[in-house]
């Protein structure tokens, strides 16, 4: 099993990938819930535009999304320079940029899963809660949110898995710098480009498979316990 031992560089790539995926998932979650609510319940001008915008990364070639991110969030981009000057947040060629790229790419999956579960909620339960004295915020926290929990969990797992595997947009936006922006897929790609890199590529591939399997298993378990709680006759 000697050959299975990961080198320090490979460990760095695994850790970075996990960090990028977790940060991407957690930061997109509140936005994902808010936008899913707006799309599922709202009636406002520009709703289909918002919907199209959210789904865009699913349809565009990842390289295009990565390049657009570079234009907008890069050092000289309008948003990127603003954030760097006022808040000291820099995305280009940093792991935060990788997280942003992964979050944007995974966002449609997150929103879609949550939106579907919101549309399945019986709004009459929310009406009942309001007659019992709950204002809109409380109705959301005590009725809507628990009822859509399975959808949120499913969305988060999808988002995490997508973020773990994101390659095209990330490498375009923040390049492939070991220790900073070299995530698992980028590292595997690098290994395949150098002579004698097969063993490393295989090791990281196995790690990828294991992480994906664990994520799936976790989502299965959580969905099952959520369904048990909501047991309908």
């Amino acid at each position: 099993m000697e050959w299975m031992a990961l080198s320090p560089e490979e460990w760095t790539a695994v850790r970075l990938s996990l960090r990028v995926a977790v940060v991407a998932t957690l930061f997109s979650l509140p936005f994902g819930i808010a936008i899913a609510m707006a799309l599922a319940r709202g009636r406002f001008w520009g709703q289909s535009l918002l919907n199209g915008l959210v789904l865009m990364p699913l349809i565009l070639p990842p390289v295009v999304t990565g390049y657009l991110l570079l234009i907008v969030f890069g050092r000289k981009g309008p948003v990127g320079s603003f954030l760097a000057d006022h808040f000291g947040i820099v995305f280009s060629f940093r792991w935060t940029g990788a997280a942003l790229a992964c979050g944007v790419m995974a966002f449609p999956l997150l929103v879609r899963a949550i939106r579907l579960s919101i549309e399945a909620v019986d709004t009459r339960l929310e009406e009942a809660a309001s007659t019992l004295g709950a204002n809109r915020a409380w109705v959301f926290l005590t009725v809507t949110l628990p009822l859509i929990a399975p959808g949120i969990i499913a969305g988060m797992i999808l988002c995490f898995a997508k973020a773990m595997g994101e390659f095209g947009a990330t490498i375009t936006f923040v390049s492939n710098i070991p220790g900073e922006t070299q995530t698992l897929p980028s590292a595997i790609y690098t290994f395949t480009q150098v002579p004698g890199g097969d063993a490393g590529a295989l090791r990281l591939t196995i790690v990828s498979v294991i992480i994906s399997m664990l994520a799936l298993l976790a989502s299965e378990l959580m969905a099952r316990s959520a369904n048990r709680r909501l047991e309908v006759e």
Partner: protein
Amino acid sequence: MTLAIDIRHRLGSFLLDARFETGSGLVALFGRSGSGKSSIVNVIAGLIRPDEGSVAINGVPLVDTARGLFVPPHRRRIGYVFQEGRLFPHLTVRQNLLYGHWFTPPAQRRDGLERALDLLGIEALLERRPGRLSGGEKQRVAIGRALLANPRLLLMDEPLAALDEARKAEILPYIERLQEESRVPIVYVSHSMAEVVRLAANVVLLSDGKVAAAGPIGEVMHRLDLFALTGQGEAAAVVEAVVERHDERFGLTELRSLGGVWRLPRLNADVGARLRLRVRARDVMLAKSAPADVSALNVLPGMVAEIRTGDGPIVDIRLDCNGDALLARLTRYSVERLSLALGTPVHALVKSVALDRRSLSRPAQNATGADAEADEA
């Protein structure tokens, strides 16, 4: 409590145009499905914002479109028991019951969990989830949940409609107890005349989104011109009576009303108890002279007070039996044969077995409530 409603609201091609005021006791909103009952209740609860008009409880407005006033549902403190229960599936029965309680400011909390459990008999269900409850249990929990929010008015939108007869019989006594023991006024929506007669003091009769009649149940029920709305086969008189004695030998109970003595199959009621008899028009026979040999045990003298002849062979007649109104549904042939006219003295015959348990109810608050207030004064 007074509830004053004056609203106009358009729902597609349906126009709701309702205006009425009610006093205390249980008020029934009665009408066929699609007559606008549920919409009115939703307007009272604040789930529908009317196009135009106002709703006020005890003179305090909840909606007044002229002034741009709309109190949102969560600030109205109006309990709502829905037809389908609408219990929260992710919470246990206990958490469901305490949901509204938790949102009530402590100073306004009247009823505790104990009292609701006692009133509704749901103690054993506390740790279960709604998915595992029967229809009747769900409705009892829904009633408890609404009560524990300490409402100043309780709305019940056909709470029994989704239940079978056995379950209805299980819940009705709880609603009767609720009326007697808690002082919360109730607005009760129903399309079942039997339920309305059993529970209501006042009734608002709705037809096509408009109020056809409103008033004490006796008055509305005894109007022949409203039979088409109160239900053809169901047309019935409501008679308030007091249990006078039990006849153990024949297993009968005697009751006295203004019009005379009623004999019914033995009832499980104390002597002196007030009951409400529902005498269906099709169960009443008329005779011009007191019949000598007849099996019917209830023979009440009276006179014809109103005759209403329709297009068909049926004639509806209202009798005045010494202050009690009775209704009789006869054929036109019989009316002509007996030459019945206004003021004709007659005897009404009702078989004891036609007055079964289901035609009985405890009188609604108008009787007991008035007594209680007199005592206090």
